């Protein structure tokens, strides 16, 4: 479904990604792991058009998306969450989730003014879907709160609710459990499993190895901007290259 083909990204001559290639298959949960600074967030930013790759191709359902503006990529069905939250602090929790549906409710002002009854009906439908998403992530009671005052864990879940409400074809999750306690992590892990069993395709960037090994179908390992391994969680667990990347280059220093 998503095909990363020899992606490179340089920042002022410094390579952050070099020749990274892998596929994300439909209906599966692919995890992207690697030590800090391996280039995981850079790659996610390239996929969503926040950054422009220096070279290579990114194809989504055989359409080239590298270099497209962010909002277009979002509109073809790729939703994401952020490592450092990007919510709308001044909007209510419900409105935050509704923004995830603006692609579907996108009318011009003229249309909004003319087709009132039809519009009202549809806005109600969108609201029901947003409430259902809030319900999935246990945020129903806080629907009218300004999102800015939510606790950290709630903000993380709000981003998940916003990203999933439009039923995206591909969901990119950038460290969804970073900073959460073990209880909250388990809850989010449970949510992700549910999303996968309902057919969502996901690319998960995560440092929490227990979570990754528990829920991923396949794992891609980045180290210093290179893709060093692709495989099932069991293969990755025993891969010497991966162990080396995580535990340090023992031979080199010895």
């Amino acid at each position: 479904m998503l095909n990363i083909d020899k992606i490179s990204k340089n920042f002022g001559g410094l390579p952050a990604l070099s020749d990274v290639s892998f596929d994300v298959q439909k209906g599966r949960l692919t995890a992207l792991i690697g030590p800090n600074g391996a280039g995981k967030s850079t790659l996610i930013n390239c996929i969503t058009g926040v950054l422009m790759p220096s070279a290579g191709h990114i194809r989504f359902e055989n359409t080239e998306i590298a270099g497209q503006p962010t909002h277009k990529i979002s509109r073809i069905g790729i939703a994401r969450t952020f490592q450092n939250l990007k919510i709308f602090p001044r909007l209510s929790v419900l409105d935050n989730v509704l923004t995830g549906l603006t692609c579907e409710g996108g009318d011009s002002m003229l249309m909004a003014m003319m087709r009132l009854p039809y519009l009202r009906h549809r806005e109600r439908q969108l609201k029901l879907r947003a409430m259902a998403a809030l319900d999935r992530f246990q945020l129903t009671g806080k629907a009218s709160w300004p999102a800015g005052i939510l606790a950290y864990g709630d903000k993380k879940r709000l981003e998940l609710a916003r990203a999933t409400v439009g039923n995206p074809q591909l969901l990119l999750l950038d460290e969804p459990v970073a900073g959460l306690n073990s209880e909250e992590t388990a809850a989010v892990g449970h949510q992700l499993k549910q999303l996968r069993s309902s057919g969502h395709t996901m690319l998960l960037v995560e440092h929490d190895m227990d979570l990754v090994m528990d829920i991923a179908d396949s794992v891609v390992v980045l180290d210093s901007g290179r893709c060093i391994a692709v495989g099932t969680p069991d293969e990755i667990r025993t891969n010497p290259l991966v162990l080396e990347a995580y535990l340090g280059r023992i031979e080199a220093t010895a």
Partner: protein
Amino acid sequence: MLQDFIQYLFAGLTNGAIYALIALGFCVVNNTMGIVNFVQVDFVSLGGMLMFSALFALGLPMIPGLLLAIAGVALVAMVIERFGLRPARSDNHLVLIFLTVGLSIILRGVIKLVWGKNRMALPPLTPDKPVEILGASVLPQALWIFLLTLIAIALLTWFFYRTSLGLSMRAVASNPTAAAVVGIPAGRVRLTSYAIAGALGGLAGVLVTPITTLSYDVGVLLGLKGFAAAIFGGFGSFPGAILGGLGLGLLESLSAGYISSAYKDVVAFLVLLLVLFVRPTGLMGKE
């Protein structure tokens, strides 16, 4: 005494409503693009001019003329955003602000070319016979100003809180990066914000020029006062713009009435400065 006071009150609220409309226009563009749009001042002049032409060149009645003038300014505003600002492809706010200064001068020049430099008179929306309210005599045009300002505010509120495009615009104002990520097209939001700013400025022009007079640069001073009102209320805040506009109008008319009309601008702006010294974010501004 009381009668005088009520008279000043009405005069202040009338001007204040106009400042509020202009201030709202400044705020809409500021919230979606983060810039001060100086073309706003010329939207006011253009509104009056289009109304003049709708009435005397096309021979339209008042209400269709008013709607046509407002729609015309909104359209011009959209053209200015699409072909004047967007080709700059710059995110540098200073560059964009100076572009609006340049575009403002160009638009003023075009207005001067089309309608000339002479002062013109625009008739009020209904015949000019003052009505007595609480012992004060009030022009019907002032009542029109109150009514149409209220309608404009109601429409804006409905648009921002009840439609998905309005939600998109609030989202962009709150966090532009996040807005792009959820698929909100920045271009359409900018275009809409300009259309709204144009409509608000145009409405202000149609309403105020029968009281002042109509000339190609009538909007400049009014627009700057609207800008001051927006800052007074807290730049970017809609309730602040309304409050700031009415506040500035009242300050002006009360200082003109009780101190001296020669110093009304001085007194008004002095109070404005004092407020900003105490509360730099304005009356309703965010901390």
